[in-house]
């Protein structure tokens, strides 16, 4: 009960802070009319909502991947899916500067789907079924391949290098109402589907044979989780660019806060992800006030440090 109250309070505080504080021109709740009201409605509110839904999508996707592969180190950015989606979006942006909306989403989904297929293929090569920890190395290789291609594209397109690099850092600034629906619709779709996966994911923790005995098919569950994650990641990458590491840190923190029970963990962890990104966006504005710092930098630094800590700590990676 108390935890729930604290959670709601933090959520309200986060939204309030992101909407009203740490902006170059600050105003309060009371003078929300006229021009300030317009700024609020057209700029700040969509940005806060994009932060929330992007964070929630990445958190959900990370949770699905971590539960289905039973590997606490895995996340869409480490497995290279982020990198493949962003490569395709970059290539698409280079070819057609003004594309927005569904075409970007399509390119992004194609990229993440291709990344998933390559992951499977290369993992099969390295016999990942026998050595499950190798999926991380496979994912890292895929990530390196895709990001080298992305670098190539960015370097070759000299006119747009600056804006592309800025986009690649992953940020939520400057998002408008038009782009929100391409984030919210996939999120709502995937979230409702994942509610059906709560029981099977709980069962998956017990091992594949137990899952079969309980009546679920483990490979189908994994495939479903992966597909949902791919859709979520592609939605986030198409709107905000690759937000590094959110899919890794947030599930870990959520597990510490809410326990291991999927019934509570999945929905609450998702909300916690949204909360996390709202706070990250708010605090990232303090780094170079009054200039914008893309929130992807903050999440990359925090996530990188946390990933390092996790890989050094024993009995986490089961390697």
């Amino acid at each position: 009960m108390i935890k729930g109250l604290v959670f709601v309070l933090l959520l309200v505080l986060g939204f309030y802070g992101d909407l009203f504080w740490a902006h170059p021109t600050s105003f309060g709740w009371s003078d929300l009319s006229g021009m300030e009201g317009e700024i609020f409605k057209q700029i700040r509110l969509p940005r806060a909502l994009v932060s929330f839904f992007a964070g929630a999508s990445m958190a959900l996707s990370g949770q699905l991947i971590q539960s289905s592969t039973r590997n606490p180190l895995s996340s869409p950015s480490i497995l290279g899916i982020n990198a493949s989606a962003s490569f395709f979006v970059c290539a698409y942006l280079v070819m057609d500067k003004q594309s927005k909306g569904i075409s970007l989403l399509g390119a992004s989904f194609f990229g993440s789907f291709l990344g998933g297929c390559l992951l499977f293929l290369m993992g099969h090569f390295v016999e990942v079924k026998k050595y499950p920890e190798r999926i991380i190395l496979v994912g890292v290789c895929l990530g390196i391949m895709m990001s080298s291609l992305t670098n190539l594209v960015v370097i070759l397109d000299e006119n747009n290098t600056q804006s592309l690099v800025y986009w690649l850092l992953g940020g939520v600034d400057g998002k408008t109402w038009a782009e929100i629906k391409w984030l919210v619709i996939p999120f709502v779709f995937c979230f409702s589907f994942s509610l059906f996966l709560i029981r099977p994911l709980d069962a998956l923790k017990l091992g594949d044979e137990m899952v079969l005995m309980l009546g679920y098919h483990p490979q189908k569950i994994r495939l479903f989780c992966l597909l949902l994650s791919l859709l979520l990641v592609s939605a986030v990458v198409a709107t905000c660019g690759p937000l590094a590491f959110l899919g890794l840190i947030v599930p870990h923190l959520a597990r510490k806060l809410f326990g291991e029970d999927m019934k509570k963990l999945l929905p609450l962890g998702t909300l916690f992800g949204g909360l996390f990104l709202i706070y990250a966006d708010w605090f990232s504005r303090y780094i170079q006030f009054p200039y914008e710092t893309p929130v992807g930098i903050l999440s990359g630094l925090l996530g990188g440090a946390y990933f390092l800590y996790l890989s050094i700590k024993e009995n986490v990676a089961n390697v």
Partner: protein
Amino acid sequence: MFKKRMSFKMTFIMVFCSLVLSTLLSLKSGGVGHFSWNEIYHFLFSGTLESNFVLGELRLPRILLCWIIGPLLATSGVLFQSLTKNPLGSPDILGVNSAGSFMGISFILYFSFLPSWFLPLSVFMGGLFCGLVIYFLSTTKKISSTRLAIIGVAIHILFSSLIQLLISLKSLEIQTALTWLSGSFWGKGMEELRWPFLLAIGFILTPYFFIKKMNVLIFDDETIVGLGENLSSIKFLLLLLAVLCSSLAVSLTGPVGFVALLAPQIARNLTDNNIQKILPLASLISVLLLLWADGLGRSLFPPLEIPVGVVTCFLGAPFFLFILMRKNRLEKRRGLV
């Protein structure tokens, strides 16, 4: 059981011949101009290097750079692999190169008022810090080789985020910074390469003084001490040398990925487990890899030039997985799995 290998002499001669051939091919190919074999012969033996602009100023420095960077990276890779006793140990995977390039980028973007020899120095400091951390971790018994690679990857990712932070804070010279970060051989003249060439020869030849002692690193620590060798000084010296080699390479062209990992592995496959044979062979193979990567980058889509680092990363990553797979199969065959 064990497949019949060529004798070491034959392998060496074959690699050397293909190296000479590749050098000549590399001189000939490229996007800017077409030269016949006659002209190239003339150029090489005419006595002066200024006789031909494209060959002398554009292509020859790049080829010379391959010949410098290759043995540097290969030596560093072989030394790291022996030190960490891990076939996946190499300065790029273990994050040493990224720590060095982080310091290098901060020098380029923020401290360019200092004299230019500060660049190799800063890269070296970053690389040494990371190398010490990795070395410390690898001596802990509880860390398996895959986990060491994952830790190295974590360090690499952390420093890459730091580099991104730096780039975003100072966005005026993004293009230069990014090109440097992908490992590019572009734009070096013969004059700039003089000092690095001499330094590189020094660094590459130094391991050959202790090469007989280096073989002893195959064994574990107690055995080495039992054989009467001074364990910590050997290890520290070799670590220093490895970081020196890779920092010089990184400071010249930025981090070129995967060569330091693959060249020693290929050399190990072509000959037996003797460092006296692996080190020179790996150096030659790395030059071969770099010549081909550079040549491909220049010739695939003329006049576009793909940086060498991009080619090596793109082709090297699946090759690295292929090596993992082979290691897997070999272990199965020998009954270790």
